């Protein structure tokens, strides 16, 4: 469903992404890992249109995303979360979801209910999403006043609210403790069960190894390995990228 072909992004002389290829299947959780500065977040930003690629193509269901303006990509079916939490902190939790909300195709509400924000069906749907995210009783709180973990969950809920074909999670576990990471694992698996397709960029191996179907490993902007979590853990090149040389890597990657 998402196909990245020979993606290249240079910042001046820095080759942040240098010839990346991968394909994500429908309903799959796809991991993108690599050491710091290997181009993972740049890849997410290229798919979302924050940066324009130097070269290469990004296809979503066969449609070239490069031809779609960055602000139209959410309607094309790409939603994301951010590495550093980005929320409209002066809006309430409810409003943050309301502005991200897209109705299921075929059940769109007219612009009148859009304008005045009075659609009972949509209110119920948003409330359901809040319950799923464990924010059911926080609807009227300002997003900026939520606890860190709750803000992360709100970001996730917001990405789901736009009914995307593909959700990009940019280091969702950054700064979480192990209980929160376990909770996040459950949420990502639940999203997969609901049929969502996820691209997960992450450092925290506990999350990556437990939820992904396939993984691509990046180093210096180039893919060095691709495979299932087990295959990746046993890959010599990956161990070298993370630990310097294979001799020292007795403990494995996790």
């Amino acid at each position, binding site marked *: 469903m998402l196909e990245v072909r020979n993606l290249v992004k240079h910042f001046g002389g820095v080759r942040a992404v240098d010839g990346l290829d991968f394909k994500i299947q429908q309903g799959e959780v796809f991991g993108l890992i690599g050491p710091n500065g290997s181009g993972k977040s740049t890849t997410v930003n290229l798919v*979302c*249109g*924050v940066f324009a690629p130097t070269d290469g193509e990004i296809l979503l269901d066969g449609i070239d995303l490069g031809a779609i*303006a*960055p*602000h*139209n*990509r*959410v*309607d094309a079916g790409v*939603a*994301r979360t*951010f590495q550093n939490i*980005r*929320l*409209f*902190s*002066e*809006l*309430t939790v409810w*409003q943050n979801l309301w*502005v*991200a909300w897209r109705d299921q195709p075929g059940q769109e509400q007219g612009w009148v209910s*859009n*304008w*005045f924000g009075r659609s009972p069906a949509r209110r119920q749907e948003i409330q359901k999403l809040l319950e799923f995210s464990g924010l059911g009783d926080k609807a*009227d709180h*300002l997003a900026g006043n939520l606890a860190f973990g709750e803000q992360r969950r709100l970001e996730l809920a917001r990405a789901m609210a*736009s009914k995307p074909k593909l959700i990009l999670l940019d280091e969702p576990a950054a700064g979480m403790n192990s209980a929160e990471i376990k909770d996040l694992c459950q949420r990502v698996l639940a999203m997969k069960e609901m049929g969502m397709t996820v691209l997960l960029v992450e450092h925290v191996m506990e999350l990556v190894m437990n939820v992904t179907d396939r993984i691509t490993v990046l180093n210096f902007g180039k893919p060095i390995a691709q495979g299932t979590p087990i295959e990746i853990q046993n890959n010599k090149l990956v161990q070298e990228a993370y630990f310097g040389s294979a001799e020292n890597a007795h403990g494995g990657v996790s």
Partner: protein
Amino acid sequence: MDMYLASVLTNMTLIAFLALSAYLVLVVGEVSFGQQAFFGIGAYITASATALAGAHVFWGLLAGAIGGASCALVLGLLTIRLSGIYFAISTLCFAELLRFFLLHLRFTQSVDGRIIGPDGPEGFSNIRWIFENNYQVTDFLLLAVTCLIILLIVLFSLERSPIMLGARMVGNDPILAQSQGLNPTRYRLSFITLSGAVAGFGGGLFALFNTHIEPAMFGVMLGIHGLAYAVIGGLGSAIGPLLGVFLDIGLLESIRSLAAYRMIIFGGLVALLLVFRPEGIISPRLVSHLKSRWRNRHV
């Protein structure tokens, strides 16, 4: 009504247009030091239209608003890739550029034995619309307040619409707004243009009321005052800038014994507010809080 009171109120109403125009730019997350130029351009255009071309005052004011909006749109297009301090500096330069243009603008005509028209630094004298139509100060106050109320009605309906919500989102975080399907560039351009229209309209009224305008009136201090009123009042609602205007001109100027110390007190007030309420008196946070309390009570 007391003449003095009426003229202070009229002044407040006119400056409110400037403060509201600064507010509209602040909403999309930018600081403009250039609104006074749109105010000045509006003043000159309205003055020329009514005094030289003999147009009806309605068309004169409309032309002023359109002139202000066009200049603002040009500024918006020129600064399309700038933000933050770079945008602010550009607005200041652009405004000074327009003021220098006015300083060199001369096309005077003799109408009924009076020299009328922009005359360089001497300015534009004999804008006699207010006398020709026998407007007393109180009549003019009524006209200006009516215009302000119409503008406020427009802004409040905007405030309840997704447009203003979108603008605030863009102002808060353009990258996030973009990822939610909003076009930050379009929002910025529209709001900067709208701010130019509001300032231009206010400038037109200012020209009619003052009967004499000159480029020196539209210097950067005027813009900074307008900006300060919006910042002090807060960006939560269009009421904020009005409150700022009321606090400075209304409260301080009307207490005559303070007149000499007005700027000192004003400066102190700004400093205190920046320490204790950096988001302004009516901050977005406060508005959001009040709205959700109101909702809870009525559900």
